[in-house]
């Protein structure tokens, strides 16, 4: 489904070119749950951002199914974000001026979903995440775990085919982390492709495949469950 071929990401300064990613070749099938791991500065987030079209690769080819996403206009990117991707961030990134309800509703607005349908979709997800009572609160009035739940709810309400999560539990304590990861697993069981970046071995265990990066290159790519058993 996702096919990256010879992806490079460089930053050029006056005298030199610095590689953040170099020669990445990667295929991810529909319905996979992939974790990208590696030390700080290895290029994990950059890779995730390139997959999520938040950043452009400097070289190489990016295919999503049959579609070439290598260089898209802003308009096409916005369309892809609407149709395929959901994002969960370490810092939650909720819109501070909107309530829980409105934050979750926003992706539907960009998808031009009708008001009545929006209401029922948001109500359903609030119910599922147990946040009905908090729907009128603003992000600042919630705990970190609750904010991240809202972040996940918002990411999946548009039914994206791919959920991208960058350190989704980085700011959470262990009980909250567990809750989020179990949620991810459930979503994956329902068919959502999930790609997460994390430092946490515990979180990685929830995924089926682990890709390890070092200095911008893939050094390991293995099935985590098999590795555990081995």
């Amino acid at each position, binding site marked *: 489904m996702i096919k990256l071929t010879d992806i490079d990401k460089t930053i050029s300064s006056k005298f030199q070119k610095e590689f953040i990613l170099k020669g990445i070749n990667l295929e991810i099938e529909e319905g996979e749950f992939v974790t990208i791991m590696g030390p700080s500065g290895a290029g994990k987030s950059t890779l995730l*951002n390139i997959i999520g079209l938040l950043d452009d690769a400097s070289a190489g080819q990016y295919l999503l199914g049959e579609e070439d996403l290598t260089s898209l206009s802003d308009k096409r990117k916005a369309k892809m974000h609407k149709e395929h*991707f959901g994002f969960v961030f370490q810092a939650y990134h909720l*819109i501070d001026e909107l309530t829980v309800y409105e934050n979750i509703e*926003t992706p539907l607005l960009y998808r031009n979903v009708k008001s009545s349908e929006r209401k029922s979709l948001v109500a359903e997800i609030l119910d599922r995440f147990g946040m009905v009572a908090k729907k009128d609160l603003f992000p600042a009035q919630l705990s970190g775990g609750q904010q991240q739940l809202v972040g996940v709810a918002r990411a999946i309400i548009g039914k994206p085919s791919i959920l991208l999560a960058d350190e989704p539990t980085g700011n959470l304590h262990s009980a909250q982390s567990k809750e989020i990861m179990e949620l991810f697993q459930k979503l994956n069981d329902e068919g959502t492709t999930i790609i997460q970046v994390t430092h946490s071995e515990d979180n990685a265990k929830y995924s089926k495949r682990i890709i390890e990066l070092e200095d911008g290159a893939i050094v390991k790519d293995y099935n985590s469950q098999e590795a555990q058993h081995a």
Partner: protein
Amino acid sequence: MFKNHFKIALRNIRKQGLRSVIHVIGLSIGVAVCFVIYNLVSFEYSFDKFHKDSDQIYRVTTVTSNGVEDWPNPGAPFPIGPAISNEMSAVNNVAQIFDTYRIMVGTFADEQKFGVKQTVTYADQHYFEIFDYKWLAGNKESSLSEANEVVLTETSVKQYFGAIEPEEAIGKELIYADSIPFYVSGVVADFQENSDLKFTDFLSLQTAKSNKDISIRLNIEEWNSVNSSSQTIVKLHQNQEAKAEKELAVIDEKYGEDDEEWTTTFNLEPLSEWHFSSNFNYRSADKSVLNGLMLIGLFILVIACINFINLESAQARLRSKEVGIRKTLGSSRKQLIIQFLMETYVIILLAIIFGLILSQFGIRYFADILPNTFELDYLSMENLIFLLSLSVMVLFLSGLYPAMILSGYTPIKALNNKKEFKPGFNLQYLIRKNLIILQFSSSIAFIIAVLAINNQISFLMNKDVGFNKEAVLHISTPFQSTLDNTVKLKNNLASLSDVKSTSMSSGTLVSNSIWTSSVEHEVNGELVEVGVQTKVADTNYLALYEVPLLVGRNYSTDESEVVINESALTALGISSPIDALGKHLVYDEKDMTVVGVIKNVHTRSLHEEIRPLLVGNGIRNLFTVNIKLNKGANLASAVDAIQNAVKSIYSVERPEIKFLDETVEGFYQSEVRLRKILFFATIMAILISALGLFGLASFTISQRTKEISIRKVLGASVAELIVLISKEYAILIGIAFLLAAYPAWYFIKDWLNGFQYKIEVPYGVFILAGIIALILCMTIVSFHSLRAASSNPAKILKDE
């Protein structure tokens, strides 16, 4: 989506209170200024637009020229009417009117019952064919075709006959000018729209033609007599203007009585121009003033928009996270631009509401210089359309640039709140600085202009005019006053205890109106003509005004004696005053002898040079009584006593008593008006700029708290930090000053050229304006930098 955007807009307005208040105040000032100016301009352009085929209506005007000076006149010789009617095929209709200016109206039993009216004109029946009036009684075909007929408007009917039906007024008798009977032949509705055709009583012109006394005044036969009251109005056939002008030139050629010295030219003036040249309302609008006002309005609006742009683009980073999130959620750049524009629009709508309230204050401030009939109709269709257009214009002017910046953030950088910092050139930063400079340049230029105009006005008011204008009052006797009455008034006034002396004259010594004629004198055996300003007065005149006599003596009651001024010496080619004594002059075909020479005194406004002046005794044209009060006289009681004396002689029409110094101040009304307008513009420009700087400095300095804290830890004192931060702004003001100086200098120089007597370009006010701007700027910046510099570095660095 709309609801979502609207909600965010309101929450942001609430959350960022200072920013919102600054935006709303700034923009509302801009809106208020533009709204009032728009209404004033469209009011002035609205006059007489409503007549059918108004673009085909013209009047014949006359320019008399002696090759040096042109004397334009809205009137035309009376015989031109029939000539146009017979000889110009481009003309559809010709009407002639003769404005009576002031005329007594009464009834048979009481000829002065309704007093003097200023809205009465003679008119022929064609007048009503050219201008659309709604007829309530009688008809336009037959009315005014016979002598002694009068057509009244509803207002006049009500005034004369009370609340009666229009039909009942037909045939009723009125007496005009004390003796001439007129019978009502028609009643028309008053114009509801703005019109300079202020007439309420139309007397049939036929009456004037058949009455010898009046026809002499009208000069019905004379081709060389031009009077502004006697006007010829034509309605052309469609698209015949060029042809009409050619045909008029033929008439000019054929009948115009040109001689070696004087030429007369006839022109066609379209109805749309009457309001801006000379009209029957005695208040013509000035297009250059209107254009100037529009420019000022635009300036203020742009300055207000600049605030918006500056503050929003500076604060853009605060919103970058939201932009990043929205982009990852699928928002396109277009959708973001629409969202930010909508937020701006909500602020603009608030500004419009406040602006409309402010405009009420504006109207009050300018009440004395706005036209009397001007009023604001907030909900008229034109105003709603104007406000809508204005709001859209402001939206794009102020909202588009910040919206473009915001929506252009790349999501990943925006989310990580990374400043897109590039060393070296930074366009946004440069634009922001330039905009501040532009704002302060405008403010400084306005300050310079106001101060310079103020200096010139006080120079005008305080300049020694050469005679004593203190404690002098003057009365213009009524239009139809007899000489006997004037003499009686003068004598009665002279006997009052507060009055030092009185004098009758053709006008006050210094006056807005002028009477010029020519005198002949002999040079090498030949008579040479010299143009002079003439004043006729009794023998008290020069003493009353304390005009210094250089040589000779005052003129006596002998009408052949005259006194001249120094300028007249030059004009007559006499080198020394003493040589002028005994000089013979021919004036009005009579021999005159110069018996004295007075010093040059200003008899006109200081826009003009002192002209050659001739003063002598006479009994003609003595319309003015001059009164000099005793030193220390109680003004209130003196005026009371004078009023009583006037009342005992003129019971119906009471002439006004005026103070000479106020009359002189009146000469500079347009300068005072200009000062008032510019003063207002200056305050607005300063207010908006200061407000913008306040917001911007507050934000940019708060962004530098980390730097300030580190410097403090490294040992910088509060004073050093304030200097560090303020220096940058002081440089901006310096550049703004340099940019403002030349345009301001050019404007002042040009404006001062309109005066014969003027101050030098006051360079001191340039410095003063710069200092005012600098102090203002430094106060604002120091306020914020002091706060930043005094904050506890430990706390700030910990937070970072």
